[in-house]
């Protein structure tokens, strides 16, 4: 079996895998990082979104072997120890989850939106950008609200990091 190695949430990970192994399977089954979910397995729902080299990607639609040498960020790598990431905090504050199944993918997508579009997001921009993330519970209203608030909160985060 071929070997794959990558950096996941800052830590080196390496394993021999069946070539069919999807990135999401590698994360969940080899590394036991079960925060990344599989909602559809048909590239539609976005529950499996992680960042690969800084970009949001559907991890059910990428082979683990393709991610060889990449840096991966999953929902588990977002918080700073016990302190939630501002986007996670915003989801909690705004009651942006019910069953929580879509939430890891929503939050990873949300952080990616902020990276690409900045800290001041219009509601319609957020809704357009969520095209690839499906939620069956919330009706999206509070998710959209949370992402707007999280995006604003992240601007503080960036300056804080820069100051450190």
């Amino acid at each position, binding site marked *: 079996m*071929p070997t794959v190695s990558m950096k996941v949430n800052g830590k080196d990970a390496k394993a021999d895998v*069946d*070539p*069919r192994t*999807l990135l999401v399977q590698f994360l969940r089954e080899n590394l036991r990082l079960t925060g990344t979910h599989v909602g559809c*397995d*048909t*590239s539609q729902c*976005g529950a499996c*979104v992680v960042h*690969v080299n800084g*970009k*949001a*990607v*559907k991890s059910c*639609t*990428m*082979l683990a*072997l*393709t991610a*060889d040498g990449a840096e991966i960020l999953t929902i588990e790598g977002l918080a700073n120890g016990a302190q939630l990431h501002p986007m996670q905090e915003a989801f909690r504050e705004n009651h942006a989850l019910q069953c929580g199944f879509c939430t890891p993918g929503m939050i990873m*997508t949300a952080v*990616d*939106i902020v990276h*690409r579009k900045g800290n001041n997001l219009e509601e319609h921009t957020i809704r357009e*950008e969520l*095209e*690839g*993330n499906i939620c069956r519970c919330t009706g999206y209203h509070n998710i959209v609200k949370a992402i707007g608030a999280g995006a604003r909160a992240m601007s503080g985060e960036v300056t804080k990091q820069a100051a450190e």
Partner: protein
Amino acid sequence: MYAFTYHRATGLRHAANLLEKLEDPKILAGGQTLLPTMKQRLASPTNLIDLDKVEGMSEITAAGRSVTIGALTRHNDVHKSPIVQQAIPALAYLAGLIGDPAVRHRGTIGGSVANNDPNADYPAACLALGATIVTNKRKIAADEFFKGLFETALEPNEIITKITFPVPKKAGYYKFRNQASRFALVGVFVAKRPSEIRVAVTGAGSSGVFRVPSFEEALKKRFSPKSLEGLTIPADGMASDIHGSAEYRAHLVNVCARRAVAAADEKTPAE
């Protein structure tokens, strides 16, 4: 997914050699079509050749009156490219309408064109702009390239390396999306070129992307949405499925064409 042997191509020539040598091979580019297809067992290559680490195939360059885009360029990078935004804003705009942000981070222009999905966006742009599809073996005019549903002029072991788009005087794209799949139910790309006007339609036809000569004639007299008012195309030859009847699609072709012409006039927003 059926089992396969994985090969990581280190360069174009390496990939081409593997394609020639290996039994039942298939190229993996962004995987946004191929992996779902393999999961459904509609494709089951014995050997998969991954282009992900191949360098030098994702550049965007402008030369003279054309823009050339490497086959491995991701949809998001076409959307964001200052070169494309400046020279052919409608093309940058189109790339930003494909799927969703995560799909655009992986999917490539070469993969989309090679796949020739009847509801895909890029084929309409290639045909309307008179693009040239460049492979490791030859150059193929878009007019000769798209052969029907998922059919192209590519030979089994041919790799698209880049696509060259002549810069039009103006161009516009209008996509009427299928709300569920985000593909085009109907998409119309209109290009006013120095020598001619082209109207190319994706999503509607039962055998893939096609041009509408009667619309092109009308626009030649006057490039305005008004020129298309009252013109119809026959429902015969349109696709028909649960998403829309042939008559509905034929109707949408005119609606989308008028909006594409209007978009060309106001310079398509390519944020």
